[in-house]
């Protein structure tokens, strides 16, 4: 296999990332396909110093998705209120528990950026601080997101308790 070719595991991982962003199977496949095409074009033009093709194509996917949604004006913008600082330690995130059905319910309600952060934290193994730096999201904004995430977890748990 060509050393710069993405293998099956890498393609599956990139597809999962595209799904995290788009939440739509066809869009995710299109996103992945066009990012891989762009990567191949870059290689054909003689750029041989791509040390980590997986990270390179992941960035292409993210940039393409953001461009697309900025165009459609659906990329979320932060309100002033969201910049308020909450007293939450990143450790709290590690301590949250959730069952798969709750997460299923919650996942569709999360913003793009929330899903993106959770992906970088849970799947790629970044700390929350590293994920914020990588995704260029202010730490205060991130903490407010976690605050809301915890509230949503609690709301779902409470509503299910009431139903029972």
């Amino acid at each position: 296999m060509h050393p710069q070719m993405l293998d099956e595991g890498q393609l599956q991982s990139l597809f999962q990332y595209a799904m995290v962003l788009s939440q739509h199977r066809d869009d995710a496949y299109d996103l992945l396909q066009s990012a891989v095409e762009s990567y191949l074009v870059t290689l054909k033009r003689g750029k041989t110093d791509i040390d980590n093709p997986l990270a390179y194509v992941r960035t292409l996917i993210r940039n393409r998705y953001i461009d697309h949604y900025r165009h459609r004006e659906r990329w979320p913008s932060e309100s002033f209120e969201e910049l308020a600082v909450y007293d939450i330690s990143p450790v709290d995130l590690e301590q949250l528990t959730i069952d798969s059905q709750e997460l299923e319910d919650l996942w569709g309600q999360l913003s793009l950026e929330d899903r993106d952060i959770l992906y970088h934290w849970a799947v790629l193994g970044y700390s929350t601080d590293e994920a914020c730096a990588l995704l260029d999201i202010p730490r205060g904004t991130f903490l407010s997101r976690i605050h809301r995430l915890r509230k949503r977890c609690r709301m779902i748990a409470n509503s299910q308790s009431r139903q029972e």
Partner: protein
Amino acid sequence: MTRDNRTQSALPLKEAVQNHIAEEKLTPSELGGLLAMQRDVLEEHREQKAPRAFRVPGWLLATAASTVLAVSVFMWQHTSQQALSRDIALEVAENHLKLKPMDLETQSMNDIRRYFSQLDFSPTNSGLMADQFALPEGLMIGGRYCSIQGITAAQLRYKGQDSALNTFYEVGYDEQVFGDLPNIDNGETPKEILVKGLKVTLWVEKGLLMALVKDM
């Protein structure tokens, strides 16, 4: 599910997110397509870069160097241009066959220009579409974003008088990316390539690479 059962099945958020994300998988055919696309492009690229397998004696090399060089450059350019044009033709043909939903339904190029604001060029009518292919603006039915060789492009759709669906592509022309293609503004003739049972016509006009895909 009882409260107790749910508590038992609760996972750390990190593990739950990992499980949720891992549920999404490419199908074997999608995976195969992406692997084949990479193999085709990278193998071809490697062949083009591979060193020659034989050595020419020094004296002969000295006398024939200029000829060999000229022929090699010509052949390399010719071969890579052919391969590049075919890559473009295959890509637009695949878009034609997929026929994904349109982003915008309209018969007006003005609407198209207003909608496709993400492009780094302004979509425009081609002189050839009405004159040579009998596909004037009035037969347009809409369009969608797509990409050609990784660059964002517009796909416009025309329903011909014979009711056949034609897809027409426009993207900003960059010779470094798309190679040397015939420019009809210089009196050159469009290039026709047959792929996947379709006729793809490629040309450059008004600074744009244009491609028309028609059923044969």
